[in-house]
């Protein structure tokens, strides 16, 4: 009775090129389908955790904290409090009698020990069930300790990662507007939606600085509480990453009247366009800015383009698959692969929206499989069907690729090389090349047989 795609999931798999794409997305994950998605808590945790001088206390049983201990290796140029894993480690008696006292005591202890600039307190499934009043405890501790103690309403079962992103944005927004912005210059931005997993935010900041743009707050890679307090002072919010921080930009726009634009630092075109879009925004205030942006792009491309040639030569015509958390990343990856002469034949995301999938339908080649909230068996099925050469995804997708004799690029948790910015395009090409061109595939049974050798 084995089925590759469950009946109820049929609407979440489309093929581009057959009219407008109608994806049934933003649904709850199907029971028993082995979704690659995590939960609300995960969404909040990954967005907030790179804020390096805040205390991140997970109020719940030990698992939620332990599996997210330094989960993506986000880098900091200073404090590294975010790399520790704090938990109230709720026990049976706390579940019965309530965990508020333990939470209070834990906050007291940890704030005294680490003197953080703020504390985020994450709610987990169990807290939502036993009815601890997180807000009240946080209010009380804010007063007692003299730092913002901010509740993050991220009970795992109350939706998917998207709701977690929103809870994180709400939590951050309580900080915005509480810092002095008198010295913020007019040509200034916040960088939203980069998490500095491999030092990317430093690369992007440097481009903006060369353009004469001041960055007020990194949200949240290499983030600092005091910077976020001043974020409302920046003239423009530049938002990367689909769902994660867009909500915060909208809240800032509504309350402080500061506009936002969307950006992507992946791949050549999107990176350059992001710089130009910022320059365009400020061109009346700073007439020389467009020229400086062009100079940045020109200088970087002069270094980058020749270095890509050798990779393109080897990679031309190879087939790629993409499965990522947010669909926005997929848009850029499709372009980046095109630049390498490769063809994307399968693309999917955990939390894409209808508009995201419509866009994917437009920018992919006809016949490309597009999938929402996929799972290991669907992904392995499509990879075989499309005879993919390289797969881009996260840790959970890696063994799917490798067991099928397919190259892999980790675009999430465990990568150590920057994949954003112009240098990131080089690193990306290098990694794709290293995986696709490795001699090991000739020994993998599936490839060996395809090459006509005996089993």
């Amino acid at each position: 009775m084995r089925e590759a795609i469950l009946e109820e999931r049929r609407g979440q798999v489309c093929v581009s090129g057959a009219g407008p794409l109608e994806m049934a997305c933003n649904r709850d994950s199907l029971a028993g389908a082995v979704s690659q998605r995590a939960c609300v808590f995960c969404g909040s945790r990954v967005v907030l955790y790179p804020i390096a001088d805040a205390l991140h206390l997970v109020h719940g049983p030990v698992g939620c904290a332990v599996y997210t201990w330094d989960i993506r290796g986000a880098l900091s140029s200073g404090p590294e409090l975010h790399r520790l894993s704090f938990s109230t480690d709720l026990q049976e008696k706390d579940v019965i009698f309530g965990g508020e006292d333990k939470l209070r005591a834990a906050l007291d202890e940890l704030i005294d020990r680490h003197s953080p600039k703020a504390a985020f307190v994450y709610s987990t499934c169990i807290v939502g069930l036993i009815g601890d009043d997180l807000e009240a405890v946080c209010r009380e501790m804010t007063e007692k300790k003299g730092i913002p103690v901010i509740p993050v309403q991220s009970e795992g079962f109350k939706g998917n990662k998207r709701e977690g992103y929103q809870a994180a944005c709400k939590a951050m927004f309580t900080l915005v507007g509480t810092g002095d912005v008198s010295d913020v210059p007019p040509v200034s931005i916040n960088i939203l939606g980069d998490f500095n997993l491999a030092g990317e935010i430093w690369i992007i900041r440097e481009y903006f600085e060369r353009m004469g743009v001041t960055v007020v707050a990194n949200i949240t890679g290499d983030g600092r509480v005091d910077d976020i307090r001043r974020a409302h002072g920046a003239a423009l919010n530049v938002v990367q990453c689909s769902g994660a921080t867009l909500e915060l930009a909208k809240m800032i726009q509504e309350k402080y009247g500061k506009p936002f634009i969307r950006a992507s630092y992946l791949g050549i075109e999107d990176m350059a366009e992001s710089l130009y879009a910022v320059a365009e925004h400020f061109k009346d205030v700073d007439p020389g800015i467009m020229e400086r942006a062009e100079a940045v792009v020109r200088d970087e491309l002069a270094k980058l383009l020749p270095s890509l040639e050798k990779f393109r030569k080897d990679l031309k015509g190879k087939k790629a698959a993409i499965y990522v958390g947010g669909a926005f990343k997929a848009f850029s990856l499709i372009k980046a692969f095109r630049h390498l002469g490769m063809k994307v034949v399968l693309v999917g995301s955990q939390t894409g929206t209808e508009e995201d999938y419509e866009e994917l339908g437009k920018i992919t080649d006809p016949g490309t499989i597009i999938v929402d909230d996929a799972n290991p068996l669907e992904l392995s099925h499509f990879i075989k069907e499309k005879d993919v050469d390289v797969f881009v995804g996260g840790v959970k997708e890696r063994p799917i690729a490798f067991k099928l004799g397919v190259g892999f690029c980790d675009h999430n948790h465990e990568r150590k090389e920057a994949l954003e910015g112009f240098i990131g395009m080089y690193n990306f090409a290098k990694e794709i090349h290293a995986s696709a061109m490795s001699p090991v595939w000739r020994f993998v049974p599936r490839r060996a047989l395809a090459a006509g050798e005996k089993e």
Partner: protein
Amino acid sequence: MKDSPYVSTTNACKLCTPLGASMVFKGIKGCVPFLHGSQGCATYMRRYIISHYREPMDIASSALGEKQAVFGGGPNLKKGILNVMKKYDPEVIGVATTCLTETIGDDVARILWEFQKEFGDLDLPPLVHASTPSYSGTHMEGWRSAVKAICDQLVMEKAPERDAVNVMPGFVSSADMRHLKDIVEDFGLTPILVPDLSETLDGPALYDYENIPSGGTSLSDIRSMSGARGTLEFGRIMATASTGGQGLESRFGVKNHAIGLPIGLRESDAMFAALSGMSGEPMPRRHAMDRGRLVDAYVDGHKYVFGKRAVVYGEEDLVIGLVSFLAEIGVTPILAATGGKSNRFKDEIAKVCDILPEVPETRQGVDFFDIAEEAQGMAPDLLVGHSKGYRYAKAWNVPLVRVGFPIHDRFGGQRTLHLGYRGAQELFDRIVNAVLERNQTVSPVGYGYL
């Protein structure tokens, strides 16, 4: 009780209960582990496990949302099981609960009973279920619950006698499990491991993607455990609770041999003696030779490690085994620490350290903050434990010998051998070399002999 003055937990030295149960279910042939709870639990654990094993680790979830948390998760559990049947065609489904479903009071046994009645016309796989609330115990309690659930729920009748040995190995590596199977076979007996992760989480490159990786202990072997010569159940702490092996003894008269995790010479001797007893065979020559070589190596290397001060941390039974081993090679275990809290840890550590003039400090129910606070003033030469102690080894500039689970910052954790004479040999070589490498690195002389 926990040996810590603090309320908060920093960098926990334990994992949550359902992870242990998921691992056990993964070692049953054709089994899909299934967590009854919110989607995140399954995904987080998968990621954590995959980073160590680098193998597919599918865990299904009933993916409960807000509505189900209020009205009960039964319908989602049933639907989830049907979907797993459609996609995986499993031979067994192993259901473990989570804090969410334990707290809302879902009666999983009843839901599964209803399911079997409702869908009795389908060809249903056996369903095993373990209660694993994450707020109670550690991953090792989850492990034990799942092993016990398999014995209690799948072994229902006295099977014909067979020349087999049941082995409950505890949370050891895939390489350890392979080695255990070889050892039992060398005594002329058939090993039945619960669980057997030797292939399911360390499989070969194959032509096609396997929906459920092959390997694991088959249902028919599990059912035949009631006819085995005996059961080997590892873990001095494990033995003090109600276990699967004890159940097989009380229900079917299959003698349960509870021994420590066989790490080092003495605990391995106990395992080989038990196997000799069950098989009536003397120690096979190749293992006698391994033992001899191990003692020879102990002698060759003793001076390099004598008096080195080691901090050992991790799950209780693994720490006890490692401390026992370190004690017999002349390393001084100064601190043995664990996130578990069986209240037996201190006594068992004292027992395996009976050959030492002084027993190490022990701490149970602690996190890495406690461990670091305690160890900092002790000037350790060596850390022995999983990879999450790395930041402390780095801060103190001492080598970390990586053992157990998880090993997230090195390659090949699933192939690390700890058990038997051969495992001890591998550990001994690694520890001697860690000391030598450190000496060489800090020496101004680039010496070329040891």
